[in-house]
């Protein structure tokens, strides 16, 4: 008995010690981005295999699933590296990045001028801003017997602004001559929490249908009295459980529901990863920013056939120069992996995002290659 007790006590002490040392060594690494440092950089553009240390990031929760996939893939290739991503929200991610708390960040919106100045100061040079995560936002509805509808931007705006209130409204019927529409009341479903999905959806409506959508782009839903649900899963659940409901959600979660083909020019486009990625191709880079700053003003009002303009574009933020070489190598290695075809495919598989085209990846690669240490 006595012996057994002594033995368990010893085991407990040893495991507690192990835990303490493990924790403390992790703490040392955090933020500084790797105390033991890697020797080989990623200058060649290929994933380096001799990297070690740990890398901390924070930001948009929309990217979380993709970041998890990238972390897993990157850590598989570099067993000595630990990457963490705290999905604390875009605003928190930008704040922490500017304050120097994390080495990289994810954000659903690109840095505004004030933040850009602060970020450039934090980096002691230029900030690298890349749209690494492009995800189509599907407009989903639940109307028995109807699998897809053609809706123009004006009609979508009218529905979500609660001006079009029944499914057999003339505006809907005009674009869908073959569909038999019931006189069910429309229940628009929106996000109850602040979200990048809402921001991108309202940005689309404000840009393309300003007459029918008198609100500004915002991450808080601007119209009162609709059905509000928590998170993407909450919206999908609310749309599924009600009849005559319509909502917007990350396309990867939209399976099993009716989807809207969105009016682009004279045609109606169904969402697809390719059509979503195509939007970046026709968009202009925001002006007056650095060489490595790929902030895009999305061409929501594009009339190009085959583009799907309701997309969420989420950025990865990093510095062009870091104080220590180890961090620079890690960040460069990680972003190399993210931009690589394997990285983009991994995100597409787990998060349902749209892989970047080879042409765009090529352009962004120049910015990643520029990451280095200031010393």
């Amino acid at each position, binding site marked *: 008995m006595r012996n057994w007790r002594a033995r368990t006590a010893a085991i407990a002490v040893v495991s507690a010690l192990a835990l303490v040392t493990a924790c403390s060594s992790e703490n040392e690494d955090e933020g500084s981005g790797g105390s033991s440092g890697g020797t080989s950089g990623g200058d060649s553009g290929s994933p380096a295999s001799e990297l070690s240390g740990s890398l901390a990031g924070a930001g948009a929760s929309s990217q979380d699933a993709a970041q998890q996939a990238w972390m897993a893939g990157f850590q598989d290739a570099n067993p000595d590296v630990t990457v963490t991503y705290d999905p*604390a929200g875009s605003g928190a991610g930008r704040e922490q990045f500017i304050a120097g708390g994390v080495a990289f960040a994810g954000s659903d919106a690109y840095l505004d001028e004030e933040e850009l100045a602060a970020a450039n100061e934090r980096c002691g040079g230029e900030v690298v801003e890349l749209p690494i995560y492009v995800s189509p936002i599907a407009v989903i509805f639940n109307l028995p017997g109807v699998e897809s509808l053609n809706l123009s931007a004006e009609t979508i705006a009218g529905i979500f602004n609660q001006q079009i209130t029944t499914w057999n409204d003339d505006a809907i019927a005009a674009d869908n001559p073959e569909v038999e529409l019931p006189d069910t009341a429309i229940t628009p479903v929106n996000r109850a929490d602040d979200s990048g999905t809402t921001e991108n959806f309202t940005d689309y409506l404000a840009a393309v249908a300003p007459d029918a959508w008198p609100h500004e782009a915002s991450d808080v839903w601007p119209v009162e009295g609709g059905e509000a649900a928590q998170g993407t899963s909450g919206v999908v659940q609310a749309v599924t*459980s*009600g009849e005559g409901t319509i909502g917007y959600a990350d396309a990867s979660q939209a399976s099993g529901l009716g989807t809207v083909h969105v009016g682009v020019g004279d045609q109606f486009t169904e969402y697809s990863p390719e059509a979503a990625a195509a939007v970046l191709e026709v968009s202009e880079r925001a002006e007056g920013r650095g060489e490595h700053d790929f902030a895009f003003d999305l061409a929501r009002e594009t009339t190009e056939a085959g583009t799907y303009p309701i997309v969420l574009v989420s950025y990865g933020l990093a510095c062009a120069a870091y104080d220590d070489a180890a961090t620079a190598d890690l960040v460069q290695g990680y972003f190399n992996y993210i931009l690589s075809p394997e990285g983009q495919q991994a995100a597409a598989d787990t998060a349902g995002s749209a892989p970047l085209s080879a042409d765009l990846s090529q352009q962004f690669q120049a910015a990643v290659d520029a990451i280095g240490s200031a010393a």
Partner: protein
Amino acid sequence: MPSTTEKTPRRGTVQRPGDRVFAGASTGAGITILAILAGVAAFLVIEAWPALWASDEEMPDGEGLVLYVWPLLFGTLISATFALLIATPFAVAIALFISHYAPRRVAVTLGYLIDLLAAVPSIIFGLWGAAELAPLTVEPTQWLADNLGFIPLFEGPASATGRTMLVASMVLAVMILPITTAVVREAFLQTPRLHEEASLALGATRWEMIRMAVLPFGRSAIIGGAMLGLGRALGETMAVAIVLSGSAGVTFNIIGSGNPSSIAANIALRFPESSGLDINVLIASGLVLFAVTLFVNMGARAVINRRRDFSGAN
């Protein structure tokens, strides 16, 4: 064996180490809880301070703090009130059944099951409310809107998903049922046997006995139990956040899509993506909830204390 018990007892007030340790520990625990409460209050005030003095334009909706918090406070109060209205009669009935009607074995099992309800995490109640209960209410609420629409509560149009204030209140009612029932049941069980037998001896039926002896005795416990439940309903976060479609301002319509959200649910929904002043505003709304809860509990205590003299316990 510990050495202290071996000594022979002595007269006089001798302070043994155990006395000092126990007195110190219990005093320390008492002071700690006060310090924690003061700490929480200080945190809320300090963090809410910038929001209290910010101009109206800086607010999330550009209309000022009072107009931002008021609908949320209204939603909190109305959901908790309806929950209380639903749960209290239920709790009293269940407690009476357990204490005076059910056979002993059934009473023990039922009491145990009710207590078990208290151990279910609130998020489970939330998911159940949104996925199961809400769709079931769609047709009844549609009927209410069609036939009783002249009552402001059922004004409609009825929600197509059932994620309404009514369902949120029902979920809250289920959640506060165990605590209220437990308090009331304990009080009913302590009704003096002599009171009960005296009224029966005077020819009262069982219901008359309960009305004359049990209910007056348990009245302060019913109020106390209800107030404990109210405290929980006011602060409930996840269940409300999941169940309630909180997208509108003040309205008495409890079966529509647009409901006022509650303070706690609003904080849970908004906090993750907020930064800067928005966080201060959310914490300021939390300060309001803190004050309201404190006020409700103090009021309940005052009511119980006033009633104590008439409860028949003495």
